[in-house]
């Protein structure tokens, strides 16, 4: 069964081509994965795209112009020398089985983990951007509300729960099984 196509909807291949044509080498990698499900083996497509930090904001701008994307969440990994942020978008929603998962990731160097806010384009990104600031210690430049989201106000400075280096939360753990020595 081939899903119905809206006038300007792109399929995953077209979407990747659109971004590659527009941003050339700034798109470091793009991979399309398809998973089948159910008896009829209908497919859902997922695009994993890695972009240069310099082009990131522009990529999001183009995405918003294509269709206002849904941003469920931004997740992140501490990869040692860099911090990877993954913006999980979905586009083409609103028609049966046409939705594409679009995961745009961007690497930030640990020496200067800064990235521009996308709240001006997608106001709903505020909650998740605030969470990334406090959990991963990245600086979201231009964020309209820089307060903490989940962590208490008296949380120690320069400790980020999702980090895996010396700024991680290790020394604050209480290993209850070690108490009675």
């Amino acid at each position: 069964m081939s899903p119905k196509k809206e006038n300007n909807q792109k399929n995953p291949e077209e979407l990747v081509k659109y971004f590659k044509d527009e941003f050339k080498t700034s798109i470091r990698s793009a991979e399309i994965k398809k998973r089948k499900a159910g008896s009829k083996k209908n497919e859902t497509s997922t695009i994993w795209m890695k972009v240069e930090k310099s082009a990131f904001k522009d990529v999001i701008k183009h995405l918003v112009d294509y269709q206002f994307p849904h941003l469920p969440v931004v997740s992140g990994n501490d990869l040692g020398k860099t911090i990877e942020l993954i913006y999980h978008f979905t586009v083409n929603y609103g028609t049966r089985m046409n939705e594409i998962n679009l995961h745009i990731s961007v690497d930030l160097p640990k020496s200067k983990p800064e990235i521009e806010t996308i709240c001006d384009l997608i106001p709903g990104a505020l909650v998740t951007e605030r969470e990334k600031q406090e959990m991963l210690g990245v600086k979201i430049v231009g964020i309209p509300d820089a307060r903490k989201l989940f962590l208490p106000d008296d949380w120690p400075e320069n400790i980020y729960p999702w980090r895996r280096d010396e700024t991680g939360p290790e020394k604050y753990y209480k290993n209850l099984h070690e108490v009675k020595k």
Partner: protein
Amino acid sequence: MSSEATTKTTYHIPIGPIHPALKEPVHFEFEISGERIIDVDVKLGHVHRAVEWASRKRNPVQILYLAERICGICSYCHPIAFSLAVEAAADIEVPERAEYLRVIQGELERITSHILWAGVAAHEIGFDTVLFLTWEIREKALDLTEYLTGNRVTKGITMIGGVRRDITKDMIPRIQKDLKFFKDNFQKLAHIFLDDKTFKMRSQNCGILTKEDALKLCAVGPTTRASGVKKDVRVDTSYFAYGDLDIDYITPDKLTGKINGDVYDRIITRLLEVKQSIELIEQCIDKMPAGDIVAEPKIPKLLAQLKKVNGEGVGRHEAPRGEVIHYVKLTGEDAPYTWKVRAPTYNNILPWIPMLKGEQIADIPIVAASTDPCMSCTNRVAIVNNGKHYELNKEELHRLSVEKTRRLMR
């Protein structure tokens, strides 16, 4: 937001954060002018339990049971979304029968959750007889859950690559009997919620979320669909057996022909979804193919297989409150490198602000409840003005809400 000015006509009311019976307490700070809400600020994190960190010392099968305990109502959605993410990362193919069984469990949870919500919504406006009616129906749904999974709340049904219990032929009459019970009572509930004057008075034109705001603020689930945004993971994508089934977006215009995005529309959306869920379970029972229920029944073998995986995956499932999304990165260790959980309420926080602005204090409970948050935070309210401190507890706020209903009924 100064508090010292004596000429100031607005008040600040902090609401929350703690209600010990509920997960995810939240703290609201309202700026009030007379009875009107001028501005809202939301603070979170009072029960951040670092579940994602706890996963660093657990293997994926252990995490299933941890995920189940994220939420007491969505105790199926979280482990299943985690499974979907792991299956995507490890490229595990789920047997067809298991895909149908997963839909049945998901939809049964939706019925339980939506009916619970309907009762809470009725309670918030002081219609407690409906609360007892809905909870009677919910009790049946929980009994059916127990019959199918062995448990009423934390179901323990999910396994990576399938489910843990089959539905055999002899179980089907019992399911059909209960579905008939739900259907009969659905008519009754729909009549109460959609035709009752009191409900209409309190919910129509109250807590409006426009389509534009719903899109911009990335709202999810019935909250966004009630504002007319066609967004439902079950319809948008093909996962489980949803791709095989007859399913469409539920928006309030299906019933009333128009979309207002108010509390009433959110009630309509949820009620219609209960009906949809009943129909989906029926479709699944009809169409369910025979076969295995899990891809790899031996857990040690499954864990060994997962330990070889280097990759990342995302699992999305339409929970009763909206899309739940999990991100998992596996790096060939016992435990996943990263596990990110995003529950639907996370995205439905910002939409509260446009909903509550311009409403009255007495509308806070029903508007806040209308997104079906994982909390009913209105536990303790303190009105602070010029150093004077009044305390309003949950009962007081509830009383205000009930009084408004009575006032309108006169």
